[in-house]
């Protein structure tokens, strides 16, 4: 039998897990990543990872986890894959534990669990407040072990440019660029798994890392890989505003007892701790007595918007609310939340153990993504798979906190073996494809580079990027109006025109980051349009997508997945039914018991 060949693009949690599973199957695998995989965005995850282990005697179960996730996602997720994920979650925690993740422990030496948003159970395993870092390192170490054994070959510092599709539309490999030498090269593979993360950079400033541009997803879309539910973007309620990044204050801060409040009196300028408790407005606790500060993110974010913009109660009249931990013993804070408290301290010079933090919502997570099928993480293009934040499968209209890490790892666990099975089932593999197919794609990509390098206009890529980001943040996040969405799409088209006149200010062929950024920028603009057009079309409110003109969820018309595709160089929106075969949709209300 011929030896199959698999490529994984992206080395966050999803990508690394996919690599491990492919290597374990004895199939050689090449791993591509812009950054050394150990520096992937997954390191940013703070709060934890969900699994219904029921170690606190609360009667939690995987069925309850499943229900919370579907309900939290406002019934937009296809249910069978979510159920499979929730059932796999306890085993995933065991595996990570065996790999040596330094999870926090109980006195009995078992894993400790904390509470997170959108559930009433202690379901979130955590390693201090740097859980993602610890999980990523554990997988990175396993991959390094396979690398040392010669089963994995890493291409770090390479960026994916495009898939290589043969004449019948089947993927036969990828085209990538070495970010040092700027060499463009093609790599044959029977199957490629994409694990390229979220799209934060499209919103300019977000809680995401710099390389989370969605460029790969967009490039794939433009080659015929469908993109689903693009309009579902999670805005996290508690981030620290910053010019370069919105640094997250994890939900775990509230999971450990943190409280959100504003002064009751507008313009009350006293230092926070001088404001007596009965002159504070704990609006989440008041409006949502059952879940309190742990309502799901879309709910908390909209509540903060209301308090700040409608009720004009923002701290000091600004766009800010307090996230208060000062009532929690210092020892508990240091043991369970040190990682995030350190961030606040370092970047703002204020100790959140003694002074309430000032936070505001920020773009955080990409629920939508590459369309994949229900069982195999397979896209609509044969030979292309996707897992992790870059695909759309597990979170519906709103992701629950600590469900992403588990969905990434689970997606990788499924995609790995599925791609191997596909590759093994091929009668003829990528080696039988004519070299001209690869040459053509390489030349096409080289020409794009050369055109960009030659260009001599007056537009700066960073300026265009910032404009895109501020439009997207202002009009396509928490509150959406059709008129604004139309204007945003017009703006994006204007930016695409201006893009034709960008000047790189750097024409060298060595480690030219501007060239790479310009390529990403084009792809971001296209994906920004997918997000905006999806939002414009969806005339209802569901999960993170909220339109005051259409304030209710509209199941008869909109209980369906948006599926964007690329037809003749244009974005086309299509729709398909959601698989709700396991839990019948019910109204989603966190202000009353459900």
């Amino acid at each position, binding site marked *: 039998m011929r030896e199959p060949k698999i490529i994984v693009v992206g080395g966050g949690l999803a990508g690394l897990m996919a690599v491990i599973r492919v290597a374990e199957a004895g199939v050689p695998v090449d791993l591509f990543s812009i*950054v050394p995989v150990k*520096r992937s965005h997954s390191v940013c995850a703070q709060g934890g990872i969900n699994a219904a282990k029921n170690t606190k005697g609360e009667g939690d179960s995987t069925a309850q986890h499943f229900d919370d996730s579907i309900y939290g996602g406002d019934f937009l997720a296809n249910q069978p894959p979510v159920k499979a994920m929730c059932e796999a979650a306890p085993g995933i925690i065991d595996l990570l534990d065996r790999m040596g993740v330094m999870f926090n422990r109980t006195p009995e030496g078992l894993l400790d669990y904390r509470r997170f948003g959108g559930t009433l159970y202690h379901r979130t395993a955590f390693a201090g407040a740097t859980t993602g870092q610890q999980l990523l390192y554990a997988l990175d*170490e396993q991959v390094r072990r396979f690398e040392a054994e010669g089963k994995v070959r890493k291409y770090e510092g390479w960026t994916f440019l495009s898939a290589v599709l043969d004449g019948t539309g089947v993927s036969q490999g990828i085209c990538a660029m070495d970010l040092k030498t700027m060499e463009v090269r093609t790599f044959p593979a029977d199957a490629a798994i994409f694990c390229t993360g979220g799209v934060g950079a499209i919103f300019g400033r977000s809680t995401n890392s*710099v390389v989370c541009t969605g460029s790969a997803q967009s490039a794939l879309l433009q080659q015929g890989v469908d993109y689903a539910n693009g309009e579902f973007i999670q805005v996290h309620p508690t981030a620290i505003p910053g010019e370069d990044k919105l640094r997250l204050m994890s939900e775990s801060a509230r999971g450990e007892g943190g409280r959100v409040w504003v002064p009751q009196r507008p313009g009350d300028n006293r230092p926070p701790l001088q404001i007596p408790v009965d002159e504070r407005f704990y609006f989440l606790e008041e409006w949502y007595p059952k879940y309190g500060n742990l309502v799901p993110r879309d709910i908390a974010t909209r509540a903060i918007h209301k308090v700040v913009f409608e009720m004009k109660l923002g701290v000091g009249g600004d766009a800010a609310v307090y996230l208060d931990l000062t009532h929690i013993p210092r020892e508990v804070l240091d043991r369970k939340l040190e990682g995030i408290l350190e961030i606040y301290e370092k970047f703002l010079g204020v100790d959140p153990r003694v002074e309430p933090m000032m936070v505001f919502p920020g773009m955080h997570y990409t629920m939508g993504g590459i369309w994949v099928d229900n069982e195999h993480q397979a896209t609509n293009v044969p030979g292309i798979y996707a897992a992790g934040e870059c695909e759309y499968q597990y979170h519906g209209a709103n992701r629950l906190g600590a469900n992403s890490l588990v969905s990434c790892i689970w997606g990788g666990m499924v995609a790995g073996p599925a791609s191997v099975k596909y590759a093994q089932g091929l009668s003829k593999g990528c080696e039988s494809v004519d070299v001209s197919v690869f040459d053509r794609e390489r030349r096409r990509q080289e020409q794009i580079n050369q055109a960009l390098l030659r260009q001599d206009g007056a537009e700066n890529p960073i300026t265009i990027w910032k404009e895109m980001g501020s439009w997207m943040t202002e009009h396509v996040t928490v509150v959406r109006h059709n008129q604004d969405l139309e204007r945003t799409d017009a703006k994006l088209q204007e930016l695409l025109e201006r893009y034709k006149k960008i000047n790189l200010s750097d024409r*060298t062929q060595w480690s030219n980051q501007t060239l790479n950024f310009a390529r990403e920028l084009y792809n971001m603009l296209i994906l920004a349009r997918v997000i905006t057009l999806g939002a414009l079309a969806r005339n209802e409110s569901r999960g993170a997508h909220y339109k005051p003109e259409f304030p209710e969820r509209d199941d008869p018309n909109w209980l369906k997945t948006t599926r964007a595709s690329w037809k003749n160089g244009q974005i086309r929106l299509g729709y398909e039914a959601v698989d709700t075969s396991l839990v019948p949709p019910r109204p989603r209300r966190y202000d009353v018991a459900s």
Partner: protein
Amino acid sequence: MAEKKSVIVRVRRQAGPNERPHWEEFELASRPHMNVIICLRDIAERPITRDGKATSPITYDSNCLEEVCGSCAMVINGKARMACSALVDSLTQPIRIEPMTKFPVVRDLSVDRGVMFENLKRMRAWVPIDGTHNLGEGPRMSPDTQAKAYPLSRCITCGMCLEVCPQVNDNNQFIGAAIISQVRLFNLHPTGAMHARERLEAVMGPGGVADCANAQNCVQICPKQIPLTESIAEVNRQSIKQALLGWLFG
């Protein structure tokens, strides 16, 4: 009219690994909460030096922008720092920004730290598992052991401990504190400990723990406050024990 404040930044530039370095100076508009990454982005948006010459944007590494990915280590005002958490207000101007010196320069401020990942491989810095199939829970661990191991597992491989270590130089292959501390981490884990011998043998080899000259710069510079000197002492102790046992029973 309020006077517009500016930030003066001097960057040591180098077009490639074998090119001659030179300095460029930039004047940027000052804003609250600026960090060095924002300065570099400003330059990318308007790549013009202080004396009005057009230049190219600066090549540098960054990703998380919250000091957890380890990408952005550089030498700022003569000191190794993470650029994303280097706040302009706390720096004297002109701010001098240079690449780290103990790693090959790729271009401008970007350096190649691949050697650290290679050394992690050499030290077998992992917990060997039998497979990803379901084998039940991991070994129990006391909260005390976890509390000791967790800080070690926060190492971001930034390379600053190598940058400040006098033992890391052209004549010496010293692997540095970060890597030795990882040996300690994996030897602490119940499963990892079963394979401590392999790691200790590796760390007793060339460039290993014996090359530490106890300058203690590493522990002072570590952005994650990892007790690196403690790790070195502990690994040293384990190695000596291992060597003795090998000698007695080997």
